[in-house]
C-alpha cells in the first residue's frame, strides 16, 4: 500500500516535471519537495525509522546537519566572492 503510494508519486513527479511553475527555481523546488516526500515515506515506513530508537535519531540528526552544512556553506562561499 505504501508501495502503491510511492509508485503513484513517481508518476506525479514525472507529470509535474512537464508543468512550468514559473522560474527554474520553482520547478526544482517542486521536484525536490515531491522527492523528499517519497524519500520520507521510504525512510519512515520501509526503514522503520518512525519507530526507531533515540540513538539512531541522534546519529541521523547530526548527519543531516553536517550534510546540509556542507551544501549551505559551500553555496555561501560560492555566492559571496571577494569581487562582485
Amino acid at each position, binding site marked *: 500500500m505504501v508501495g502503491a503510494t510511492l509508485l503513484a508519486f513517481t508518476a506525479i513527479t514525472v507529470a509535474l516535471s512537464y508543468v512550468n511553475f514559473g522560474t527554474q527555481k520553482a520547478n526544482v523546488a517542486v521536484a525536490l519537495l515531491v522527492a523528499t516526500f517519497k524519500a520520507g515515506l521510504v525512510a519512515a515506513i520501509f526503514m522503520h525509522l518512525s519507530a526507531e530508537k533515540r540513538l539512531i535519531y541522534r546519529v541521523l540528526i547530526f548527519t543531516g546537519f553536517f550534510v546540509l552544512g556542507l551544501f549551505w*556553506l*559551500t553555496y555561501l*562561499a560560492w555566492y559571496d566572492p571577494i569581487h562582485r
Partner: protein
Amino acid sequence: MDATTHPHGTPETHHHDEHGDEHHELGFWRKYVFSTDHKVIGIQYGISGLLFLFFGFCLMMMMRWQLAYPGQAMPVIGNALNHFFGTGSMPDGKMTPEFYNSLGAMHGTIMIFLGVVPLAFAAFGNFVVPLQIGAPDMTFPKVNAASYWAFVVGGIIMLVSFFVPGGAAKGGWTSYTPLGVIADTGPNFNPFFNGQTLWLVGFIFLITSSLLGAINFITTIIQLRAPGLTWMRLPFFVWAQFVTAFLLLLAFPPLEAAIVMQTMDRLASTSFFLPSGLVVNGAALQVSGGGSPLLWQHLFWFLGHPEVYVLILPAMGIVAEILANNSRKPLWGYKSLVFAALVLGFLSFIVWAHHMWLTGMGSAVSAFFQTTTLIISIPSVIILSAFFISLWGGSIRFTVPMLFATAFLPMFGIGGLTGIPLAFNSADLYLHDTYYVIAHFHYIVAPGTIFGLFAGIYYWFPKATGRMMNDFWGKVHFWPSFICMNVIFLPMFLQGMLGMHRRWYDGGQGWNVSGEHIWGLTGFQWNTPISIAAWVMGLAQIPFIINFFHSIWKGRKVENDNPWDATTLEWTAPSPPGHGNFIKAPVAYRGPYEYSVPRHGRDYTMQNEPIEASELTTAHPTREPVLRA
C-alpha cells in the same frame, strides 16, 4: 524464541558453538595473520603504523638535506637512493625539484594517513578500548580484520607509487586541482600506473579502512560497555576515541566522493575540477571544461579539518590516562573534558574554509568561518587547562610515559596558540603557505600527538606483552627527542614570518628578502640548524626502536597485571589478555580515576572493586573536620 536456545536465553552462545573457534586451535594464519581478535589487529596496526612513521621520517630527513644544502649531492647515500627510488630522482646524488615535491607530498600523506591515524586511532583504539570497557572484542571482528587489510592494500599502493615511471605523487598531500589532474600525464607516464593516480586509488582503500573501523568503534562503545559502566564513568580515552570515530565516519565520505571525481578527471577526461580554457604546455586541454578547482578544495577540507582533530584527540585521551595515573589523583574537570571533546567534534565540521582564506571569499562567508574557528579554540583550551590543573597537588612520578605526557602539554599549547593568528583571514593573507603554518601544525602533531603516542606505547606495552620497556633507554629516547623537536620547529615560525614559502624545493636560497635576518640568521640559513636537529632526532629514535623490540622478548617481566597501579578496567585483565579478554564480564562500580581516595588503604581503587559498606561514607570525600571512627 527457538526451543534450542540456551537456558539463559542467549542464543548467541549456542550459535557460537557452531563455529567452534573457542574449542579448537586456529591455524597459524588465522591466529597471527588474518586474525579477528582486536588485540592482534591492534598490534598489526601498531607495527604497520610505526613502520610507516619511520619511512615518512626518512623521507623528511632526505628533504632536510635539500633544504639545508640545495643542489648539493647527498653524501654516502646519495647514489644509493638514486638507485633505490629510480634514476631521475637524484642524479649524481642531487635531488631534482620533482623528486623533492614527491617527497613533500608523500611525507605528508604517509605520516598522516599511514602513520598517525592507524597508530593513534586504530592501533591504540583497537587494543585498549574493548579492554577498557570490559568487552570481549569489537562488535564486528571480521569487519575489523577487513579494515586492517584494506589499510595494508592502500599502504602498499602508496609505496608502489614510488617505483612507477615518474615516481610518486607530486601534487602535495592536498592534491589541488588542476595540478592534481594534469600531473603525471603525458608520454612519459603510464595512463594508470602513475604516482598521482595511484595516490588517488590507494586513498580509496585507506578511506574504506577508516570507515569500517569507525563503525566498529562506535558500535562497540555504545553496545559493549560492561555492566555498571555508564557513559560518565568511561575513561576519557574512550570518549576521545568515540568522538574521533564519528569524525572519521562523517567527514571522510565527501572526500571519497571527491577522490572518485578526481580519478574520473584523470582517467575518463571529465572536468569536475577543470575550468574551461585551460592551456597546458602551450596546447589547449581537450576537455569539456566547466568544472571548478574550488569544489575540490571545499570537499577536501571538509575532511581535512576534522582530520586534524582525528590526529589530536586520541593523543589527548592517552595523555589523560597517563596524567591521572602518574599524579595519583583524579583528572580535574572530567565533565568539562567530555563536553569539550563533544563540542570540538561538532564544531570541527563547520570550520573548514579557514584553510581556504586565499581563495577570494567574500566578507560574509569569511566572517562565518573566522567566528567558528575562533570558537573552536575554546574546547581545546578547556581540555589543555583541565590537564594542567590535574597536575596541581598531585604526587607526580616521572615515569617514561609521564615524561612524554607532560611534555605534550606545553608543546600542544604552543601549537594551538600559534594557530590563532591563522584563524584570521587578514593575518593569514601573509602567513598562508609559509613555514609558519608548517611549524604550527607540526608542533601539534609531532611533539604533540607523537609524544602522546610514545607515552601510550611505553604505558600499555606491559599490558600487551607482559614485560616492561627499559626505563633508562626510555629517558635516553625522550630528552634528545624533546630538545630536537623544539630546535626543528621553533625557528620555522621565524622563517614563516620572514615570508618563506612551504613548498620551495631550494629552501629559500633563491629568494632572500633584502637579506633580512631573524635572530641572527637569514631564513635560508636557519635551514642548517633545523636539518641537523632533524638528523639528531632520527638518531634519538634508535634507542626507542631497539628498546621496543628487545623488550618484547627480553624485557623485565611484570610482577602483576597492573604494574602502573592504575584504575581502569584493562588492568584487571591478564598481561597479555587471552582470547575473549575476561573470563566473565567485569562489573564497574566506580568512575575511572579513583586515585588517592581518602581513608582507603591504597592510593588507587580499580573500577571493578565493589563499593564496601565502610565506603558509603567515604566514597565521596567530605569536608567534615571530624574523622569518622
